[in-house]
């Protein structure tokens, strides 16, 4: 992990802090990493010898009681099942509950798909609309000033609308990807921990 990856990861895990506190914390760790690099470490060394972003986040949680997210609670539950009953039991559960979770999974995926389809559709629509309105504005330029300006206005509105939707979509994608990253990281850490404890 390089410095910016480390700080990004930490930023995601500090989502329970206020914006101000989060910036302060990130500044603190950024400074320490810079100082470590200056004292002769490589960027990779400087971040790898740091405590995990998870530990850092946990120590900042109020009263040290780890605040578990819903995903982590689910993982905790799976962890206890695994230690109690082993992998075969879990596999059996996954196989036999297939009729229950598969429609839910398909439902969620379809919903996300439709949302993105609508968003991309709107972006395309806004883009095409603005170009067409601009075309109309140009074609009316010698005939009617009023029509030109109203078409120009419509084109502007379309551009604004497209930008708004694009920003929203980008934010949504960012949220989903950081959620996936965190989940993946969590699964990795947990499986490593379980392997080590054996």
């Amino acid at each position, binding site marked *: 992990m390089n410095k910016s990856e480390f700080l990004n990861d930490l930023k995601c895990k500090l989502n329970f802090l206020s914006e101000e506190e989060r910036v302060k*914390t990130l*500044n*603190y760790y950024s*400074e*320490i990493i810079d*100082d470590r690099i200056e*004292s002769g470490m490589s960027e990779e060394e400087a971040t790898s010898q*740091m405590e995990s972003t998870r530990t*850092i986040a946990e*120590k900042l949680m109020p009263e040290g009681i780890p605040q578990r997210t819903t995903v982590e609670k689910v993982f905790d539950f799976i962890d206890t099942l695994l230690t109690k009953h082993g992998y075969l039991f879990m596999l059996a559960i996954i196989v036999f509950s297939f009729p229950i979770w598969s429609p839910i999974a398909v439902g969620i995926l379809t919903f996300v798909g439709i949302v993105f389809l609508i968003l991309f559709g709107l972006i395309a629509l806004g883009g095409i609309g603005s170009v067409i309105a601009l075309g109309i504005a140009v074609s009316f330029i010698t005939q009617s000033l009023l029509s030109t300006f109203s078409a120009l206005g419509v084109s502007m509105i379309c551009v604004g609308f497209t930008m708004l939707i694009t920003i929203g979509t980008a934010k949504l994608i960012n949220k989903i990807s950081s959620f996936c990253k965190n989940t993946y990281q969590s699964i990795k850490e947990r499986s490593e921990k379980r392997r080590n404890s054996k």
Partner: protein
Amino acid sequence: MDAQLRKGFIEICVLAAIRNEDLYGYKLIGDISEYIEISESTLYPILKRLEASGYLTTYTREYNTRLRKYYKITEEGKKRITDFLSSKGEVMKIYNFIEGENKIE
């Protein structure tokens, strides 16, 4: 060392380290860790608490085109060190008591 006890010691160690010279995070950790085990993530909440309680203040200064945060002790902080040192006799008495009780068995 007991975690609770260590936390208390680190607080005073931080104040002692910046007693005569303002320091930045990395230097502070280096100086203290010679005497007591400490990590960045342990130090951070302690610094925050010491600042909130008025034992130290902070300021940033540019260094090599980046910013460094410096920690500066306040009069309150200096008093805290003196108070801690003056309780040495009391602490030793507690130690002796615990040691004595432990021997009887």
